[in-house]
C-alpha cells in the first residue's frame, strides 16, 4: 500500500497524500538549506545529492562499486540458497537428522553476521572471499528454515494421496512434497536475498574495501556527504530492484503459484 493501491490491473489509485508528503518534505529540505535556516554542517541539499550522482556516474565509480557489490551478493546468495535448500530438504524429510542437528542450528543461527568480519579478514584479508564468508552463513538460515518448515508443513492428505496411488518414496518427494513446499521455500529465498544485500554492504564497510559499502564509509571519512548519500540511495534502490526482479522471475517460472495469488476465475 506504499505508493498506491492496486485495484485490478489497469486502475491504480495513487497514494496522493503519501506522494505529496514526500514531495513536501523534499521541498522543505531543499529550501531550508538554500535559505540558510538549516545548515547542519553535513546535511546536503537534495539538489547537491543529485549533482553528486551525476558526478559519480560520469567518473564510472558508481557503476564499478555497484557491480562489485552485485557480484558478491549474487555469488554469496546463490551458494546460500543451494546449501540452504539442500540441507532444508534433508532435514525436512528426516526426523532423525533433525534430532541430531536442530540444537546446533539453534545455537549457530543467532550469531551476528558482523562477528564474522574479523575472522574473515584474518583468513582472507582484503578480498571478495571475506565478503562471501560474511554473506553466506547468515543468508543460509532463512532458506534452510523455510525449506525445512515448508516440507514439514505439507498437508498430511497429500502424503496419503501419494501412498494411495502407490508412488515410490522418491516420486512422492519430488512430485508432491517439494512442489507443495515451494511457496515456503520462495519466501526463504526472498528473505535471503534482502539479507545478502545488507550483509554485502556490511562486509564492505568493515571488511573488504571495495563496492558500495566501502564507498559510503570512504565518502563519509572524506567529508563528502553529498556523494555519501548518493551511495546510500543506490544501496536502497538496489535492494528494492533485486527483490522486484526476483518476484518477477518467480512469477514467470511458477505460473500456478503466482496465479493463485491473483485468485480464482469464477
Amino acid at each position: 500500500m506504499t505508493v498506491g493501491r492496486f485495484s485490478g490491473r489497469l486502475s491504480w489509485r495513487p497514494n496522493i497524500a503519501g506522494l505529496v508528503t514526500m514531495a513536501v518534505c523534499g521541498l522543505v529540505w531543499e529550501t531550508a538549506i538554500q535559505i540558510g535556516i538549516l545548515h547542519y554542517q553535513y546535511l546536503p541539499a537534495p539538489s547537491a545529492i543529485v549533482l553528486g550522482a551525476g558526478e559519480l556516474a560520469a567518473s564510472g565509480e558508481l557503476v564499478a562499486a555497484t557491480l562489485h557489490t552485485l557480484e558478491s551478493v549474487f555469488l554469496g546468495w546463490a551458494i546460500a540458497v543451494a546449501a540452504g535448500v539442500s540441507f532444508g530438504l534433508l532435514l525436512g524429510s528426516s526426523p532423525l537428522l533433525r534430532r541430531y542437528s536442530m540444537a546446533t542450528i539453534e545455537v549457530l543461527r543467532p550469531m551476528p553476521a558482523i562477528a564474522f568480519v574479523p575472522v574473515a579478514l584474518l583468513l582472507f584479508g582484503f578480498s571478495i572471499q571475506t565478503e562471501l564468508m560474511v554473506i553466506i552463513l547468515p543468508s543460509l538460515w532463512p532458506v534452510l528454515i523455510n525449506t525445512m518448515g515448508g516440507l514439514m508443513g505439507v498437508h498430511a492428505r497429500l502424503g496419503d494421496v501419494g501412498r494411495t496411488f502407490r508412488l515410490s518414496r522418491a516420486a512422492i518427494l519430488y512430485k508432491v512434497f517439494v512442489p507443495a513446499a515451494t511457496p515456503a521455500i520462495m519466501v526463504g529465498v526472498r528473505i535471503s536475498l534482502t539479507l545478502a544485500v545488507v550483509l554485502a554492504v556490511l562486509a564492505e564497510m568493515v571488511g573488504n574495501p571495495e563496492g558500495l559499502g566501502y564507498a559510503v564509509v570512504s565518502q563519509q571519512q572524506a567529508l563528502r556527504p553529498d556523494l555519501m548519500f548518493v551511495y546510500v540511495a543506490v544501496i536502497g534502490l538496489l535492494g528494492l530492484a533485486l527483490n522486484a526482479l526476483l518476484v518477477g522471475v518467480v512469477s514467470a517460472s511458477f505460473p500456478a503459484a503466482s496465479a493463485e495469488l491473483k485468485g480464482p476465475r469464477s
Partner: protein
Amino acid sequence: MKRGELGAFLRQAAAEVPPARGLIPLLALLTVWQLLAPGPSAYFPAPFEWWSAAVLLWDSGQLLPAFAATVTTFVEGLAVAVAIGVGLGVAIGTSRPVERALGPLLEFMRAIPAPVTVPIATLLLGYDVTMKLTVVALSAIWPILLNTSSAAARVEPLLFDVARTFRLSTADWIRQIVVPSIVPFILLGIRVAIPLAIVVTLLVEMLTSLPGIGALMIQAQRNFQSAQVYALLVVVGLFGFVVNDLFAIIEAIVLRRWPARGAFRSS
C-alpha cells in the same frame, strides 16, 4: 500466573527445546578442529587456545568493561527504540490519513539497511557515545515502528464498532483495545530489531573504535591475535544466543493468553 500454571508452562516449554544430541555436529567439529590443529596458528588456532586467549583478556581487565559497554549500548538503544517505536507506531497506525501520508516516507526509510545508517550518523553527530546510542536506536526503531503501525491500522474493525457502541473515549479505545490487540506484533517487531541492534552496536565499535567488544575484535584482528578473534567470536555468539532465547521466553510468557494468529483479521 498461578503456581500450577507456571509449572505446566515450564514443562511444556522444556518439551519444545530441541534435543541435546543435536549439538553433536557442533561438538564433533570443535573436537576434530582441536585434534587437527598444528599448534599456535595464525589462521586456525585450536579451540583450547581460544579459551586461553579469553582468560587472558579477562585477567588483563579488558574483556569485562568492553562487554559491559556493548551490552549497555544494546539495551539502552533497544529500550529507546521500543519506547519511541511503539508510541509513534500507535499514533500513526490509528490515524488513517496520517498512515497514508507517512507511508511512502517510512517505506523509503526502511529500504535503507541498518548498517548504512552508521556512517550517516557518524557524519551528522560526531564520534561519541551519544551517537552510538542514537544510531543503535535509529536502526532498531524501524521494524518496531512499522510492525506496530501496520498492526494498529489492522485491528479488527468490528472492535471499533464495539467501542462506539459502548461510547469509549479515544484514550480508552487505544489503551484497552488497540494496544492489547497489537502486542504480538510489537513483540514480532522487537524480535526482528534485536539482531539489528546487536549488529549495529558492534559495527559502530568496529568503525569508530569506541569501547566495546567490536573494538576489541578489530584490534585483535589488526594485531593478528587469531585466538583472541575466535574467542571474541564465541563471546558474541553466546551473547546473541542468550539474548534471543531470553526474548523468546519473554515472548512466550506474554503471549500465553493470546489466541493463535487466526483471531486477527487476515489482510
